[in-house]
């Protein structure tokens, strides 16, 4: 009895940790598994029938799926780039410069994160219609909406990283003959870069899987989440699981590459 208690005491943390991780990653495993499901001839699409490579070999088989994927990726990429650049610049202003209304600005930037998506989506729709864009809802309106809500997340992420940066480091660089430009690219940027990268990844995934706001402002344009939602009424094609798994693997690779890249970049910048 005593021994069992001891064992649990020793391994409680790790056991709990593993359980939580399993809990978090089971959906991904299921998605990965289902991407190999041969669903042909079966009525129950949510049960594993037989193993097949077909889904992976013909990912674009379902009508309209890959078109919607393309739209989603394009929107996510553009929204990420614009939101990351704007958000990073805003973070620098908020952290580094003292100006009138700075704390108000901080609050206003944070507020959209706390706004319910359905409210933001419907008010954006009202705005677009009022602005005379009611007839041309689509790629551009979705993009505007996505940049809007990604911005807050980028600012919050980059700001945290920047606030943790010792401003004496930049002073030291200036003292060691680096001009403003060199100081930024050799000291500030490499040290803030992990935060910017994290912000960009966050923005991408937020944009990629947004459904509510997008659905309200999309007009006839169909994004990937909208396609999945639409097809769920009839039965989700197994290829959706292929896309899901692929996305998961790609983000894994990006995170790993980002980490390695940041280290290399720091070195290269210093040695240039």
């Amino acid at each position, binding site marked *: 009895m005593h021994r069992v208690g001891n064992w649990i005491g020793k391994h409680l943390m790790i056991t709990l940790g593993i359980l939580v991780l399993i809990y978090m990653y089971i959906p991904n495993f299921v998605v990965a598994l289902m991407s190999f499901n041969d669903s042909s001839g079966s009525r129950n699409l949510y049960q594993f029938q037989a193993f097949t490579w077909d889904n992976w070999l013909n990912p674009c088989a379902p009508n309209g799926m890959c078109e919607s994927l393309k739209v989603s990726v394009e929107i996510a990429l553009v929204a990420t780039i614009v939101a990351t650049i704007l958000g990073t610049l805003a973070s620098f202003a908020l952290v580094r410069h003292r100006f009138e209304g700075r704390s108000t600005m901080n609050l206003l930037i944070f507020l959209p994160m706390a706004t319910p998506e359905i409210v933001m989506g419907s008010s954006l729709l009202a705005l677009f219609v009022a602005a005379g864009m009611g007839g041309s809802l689509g790629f551009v309106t979705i993009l505007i909406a996505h940049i809007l809500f990604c911005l807050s997340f980028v600012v919050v992420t980059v700001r945290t990283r920047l606030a943790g940066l010792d401003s*004496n480091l930049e002073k*030291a*660089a*200036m*003292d*060691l*003959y680096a001009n403003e430009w060199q100081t930024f690219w050799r000291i500030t940027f490499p040290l803030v870069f992990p935060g910017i990268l994290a912000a960009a990844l966050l923005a991408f995934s937020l944009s990629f899987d947004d459904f509510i706001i997008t659905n309200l402002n999309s007009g006839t344009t169909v994004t990937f989440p909208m396609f999945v939602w639409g097809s769920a009424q009839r039965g989700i094609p197994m290829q959706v699981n292929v896309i899901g798994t692929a996305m998961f693997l790609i983000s894994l690779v990006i995170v790993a590459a980002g980490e390695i890249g940041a280290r290399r970049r720091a*070195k290269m910048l*210093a040695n*240039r």
Partner: protein
Amino acid sequence: MSSVSESRRDLRLSGLHKRYSNGFTAVKSLDLVIPQGSFFALLGPSGCGKTTTLRMVAGLEEVTAGSIKIGDQDITSEKPFRRPVNTVFQNYALFPHLTIAENIEFGPKRRGVKESAAQVKEILELTELTEQAGKKPAQLSGGQQQRVALARALINRPEVLLLDEPLGALDLKLRRSMQGELKRIQEEVGLTFVHVTHDQEEAMTMADTVAVMNQGEIEQLGSPYELYTNPQTTFVANFLGRSNLIKGTVIGREGSGADAVVKVDMHGTVISIKQDRVHTVSKEGWIGIRPEKLLIQPEGTSLADPGNHFSSAVVVGASYLGVSTEYVLKMPWGQELMCFEQNRGVRGGIVELGTKVDVSWRQEYVFLLDSSQDAQAGREEE
């Protein structure tokens, strides 16, 4: 003639003034000449403006009024990266994403030095960091990080090296050995070092010249010996070591030239103070004497020392410190004085509490300060 004056690259601060936007004046019209090649210390309590002064010289803080010159070159509004000045920061400010070698090479690379690798190798040897070259700052100890900060600045051979509390983060033992190390390096490279510190012992150990700063102004400037033996204000008398300050009334002057003395009545005893140690023109003054200059002898035994004598003092406190003993003496007029005595074993033990003692001092050690100044100024809070 002119070439001689131009070749000297002294650091000159003229009327240097710093007022922050919130209205706080950190530095008040500072005038200072720091000779080329000297080890100069700016000493003062926190908030006295010494770090602000240093940052203005480095170009990291804007100057409100006045000028900063090195030789004839005015650098007052020069960008920090265009000044022949480098700083060793208080918390070192090493670049965390770069290795030690890369940190040190940062300056030479920015200046476009071609043979920087050889310079790095040389400076790594000078500061005994060769084995740490490939490591990141976080992997080093405090003392090693301190040396990296020093190497990173020194490699640029600045005309002036600024050190902002460079040893503040180190423990006492390491601090002692680094004090010697810094002094050695300064003598070896022969650059002008301006060292900011609140530690009077550190300033006295290393610097040729010390400027004592208080509330944005320089109270007194001189060699450690001058400052300690002949302080001009109560602040200096208390901040640099400790002092007994006793009320006295000026009763007359005698002699002239180098022999001129001021006669002061101190609770019935007349004391002669040399004119160059008198720093007041008013009738009243603080008579100052350092605690170790006070000699005591139990009443009845003979006092061989020449100078002023007082009897009927009582020992009311004694702390035995090994090498020395600190006594507190209650004087006949009620004031308590500090007295440090080396434990040379002459007396064969410490003087018991309650013992009546005779007190004496040599007149040449006494100084006279202005009575309008606070006798507690610069004293450590206890």
